[in-house]
């Protein structure tokens, strides 16, 4: 027994159990000072030590770890943001009065309309053709696969601006366009330039360019849907087109949408390239105006702010469309920012309602 008590005495406070496990203090070489200090109390009332160690009963508060460098980073970035905003407000070069004068003038708004029109037509036609190309690339027929692949290869290789100039000058290659039997007689023909004006050439170029990218995005989305889905639809005898529109595409939309939104936004801004065809879209129009009055910076700002506003609207639209297609993907959909805001507002309101009595006391 005496030998046992000496062992206990030298043991670290963590061990209240068997002498065998607590025997050598060397087993925990990092803690000998603590062990020697608490050795007497550990021997006299071991129970007192076991309570905080096992955490029994006491509710312990968790303190999150903080990183000092984060705060340094926040301060640094905050400073840069403040300098930028200060520059925007105080630098006379931005010429905000001129910006205000031109921001919503009729010519600018009409040009904005043209930009939107180009975006919508390019998107709709581009994605429609893209869907066909995607279906061709996924076809079991090697010829269709190859043609679709070649199309995508060609239109991704040619810069958009080069392609637009080609379409603009198409009348140089084909003066007239005829309807008739291929390689045979024609029934009717029109002048190419009458059929395809500058705007037509622009829409065609944008749509054909867009189709190549849309095809790959759609194909990727379709491939991301589990093979079992197609198999189940097929085992149930669901007609082939219905399999695509009802079962595969709605699920593919989840991975198509973020990429498609990227494409629509870049097409929207990409319409500024069309200014090479002298089409009065937003960017061309501000160029015309600053060519007249030499106020380059404020007018570029006019275009910039419109691009930002419309891209923001598109992003908001994207959020809700994505949410729609997320049905069933999670057990329950997270609240929208608006719902969250409303919930928070309701929370503040109830708190405010509760507060007066607290103040009253």
């Amino acid at each position: 027994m005496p030998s046992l008590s000496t062992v206990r005495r030298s043991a670290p406070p963590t061990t209240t159990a068997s002498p065998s496990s607590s025997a050598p203090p060397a087993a925990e070489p990092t803690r000998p000072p603590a062990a020697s200090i608490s050795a007497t109390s550990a021997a006299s009332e071991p129970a007192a030590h076991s309570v905080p160690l096992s955490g029994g009963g006491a509710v312990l508060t968790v303190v999150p770890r903080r990183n000092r460098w984060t705060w340094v980073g926040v301060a640094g970035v905050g400073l840069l943001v403040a300098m930028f905003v200060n520059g925007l407000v105080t630098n006379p070069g931005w010429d905000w009065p001129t910006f205000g004068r031109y921001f919503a003038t009729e010519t600018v708004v009409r040009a904005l309309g043209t930009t939107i029109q180009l975006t919508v037509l390019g998107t709709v036609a581009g994605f429609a053709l893209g869907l066909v190309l995607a279906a061709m690339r996924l076809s079991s027929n090697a010829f269709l696969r190859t043609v679709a692949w070649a199309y995508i290869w060609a239109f991704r290789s040619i810069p958009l601006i080069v392609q637009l100039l080609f379409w603009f000058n198409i009348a140089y290659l084909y003066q007239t366009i005829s309807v008739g039997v291929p390689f045979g007689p024609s029934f009717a023909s029109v002048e190419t330039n009458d059929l395809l004006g500058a705007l037509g050439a622009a829409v065609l170029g944008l749509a054909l360019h867009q189709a190549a990218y849309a095809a790959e995005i759609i194909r990727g989305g379709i491939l991301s849907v589990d093979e079992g889905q197609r198999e189940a639809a097929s085992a149930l005898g669901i007609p082939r087109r219905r399999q695509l529109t009802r079962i595969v595409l709605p699920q593919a939309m989840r991975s198509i949408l973020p990429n498609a939104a990227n494409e629509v936004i870049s097409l929207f801004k990409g319409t500024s390239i069309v200014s090479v065809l002298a089409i009065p879209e937003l960017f061309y129009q501000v160029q015309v105006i600053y060519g007249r009055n030499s106020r380059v910076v404020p007018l570029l700002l006019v275009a910039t702010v419109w691009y930002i506003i419309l891209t923001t609207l598109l992003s908001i639209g994207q959020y809700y469309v994505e949410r729609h297609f997320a049905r069933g993907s999670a057990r329950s959909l997270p609240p929208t920012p608006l719902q969250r805001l409303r919930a928070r507002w309701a929370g503040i309101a109830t708190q405010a309602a509760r507060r007066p009595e607290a103040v009253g006391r």
Partner: protein
Amino acid sequence: MTAAVDLRGVTKSFGAHRVLDDVDLELAEGTVTVVLGPSGSGKSTLLRTINHLEKIDRGQVRVNGTLIGYRRVGDRLHELPERDILRQRSRIGFVFQQFNLFPHLTVLENVVEAPVSAQHRKRSEVEVEARTLLERVGLADKAAAYPRQLSGGQQQRVAIARALALQPDVILFDEPTSALDPELVGEVLAVIKELARDGATLVVVTHEVGFAREVADTVVFLDGGRVVEQGPPEQVIDHPTHERTRAFLDRVL
């Protein structure tokens, strides 16, 4: 009387590997057939040839006398256009190991989809029927839920209701309980047993030997793509005559 399912000389290879080797099988209407066999023995492939999810190299498959997947011209079989195959499949229910419910559709929409789009029946009519079927599998209250909100056992029961909605001549089950947690197996087997009691024609590929003994009219033991032994469960399971059957049962029991 024509057999509900009739396989003659069905042969199928994946590359050089022969998965099904001259399989003959005749299953009478209203019977429950359980296909047992070690993994890789061709059980699932056999089941998938019955609704032409798997093309065969030789032989013929008939369901209720109709040649499945092919059209006979002289002594040759020409594969049917996909449209016709899809129409044939809508009379053959199939329940997958991984359920394969459509996750973006509600439970009710999952059940209603095929009868409306494949059999051109009226949606309102099918919906009433679908609710009855969901009640039958014990999920009447889950009609508006999405598949991911359900447990595996519940999902598989929805999948069974989805197959039943087509009013099929025969229902094929491909290891219906293999993807389930052990405590959920019972609820799915109970639903299948009830179908058996109601006189449906069922073909079940499974590892549940107990289920086979209790429910099956015929047990088919498959190994190496061949039917090694076939007969009532008390014969095949309790008194197997073939060494390979015995070895398999020793391993799983």
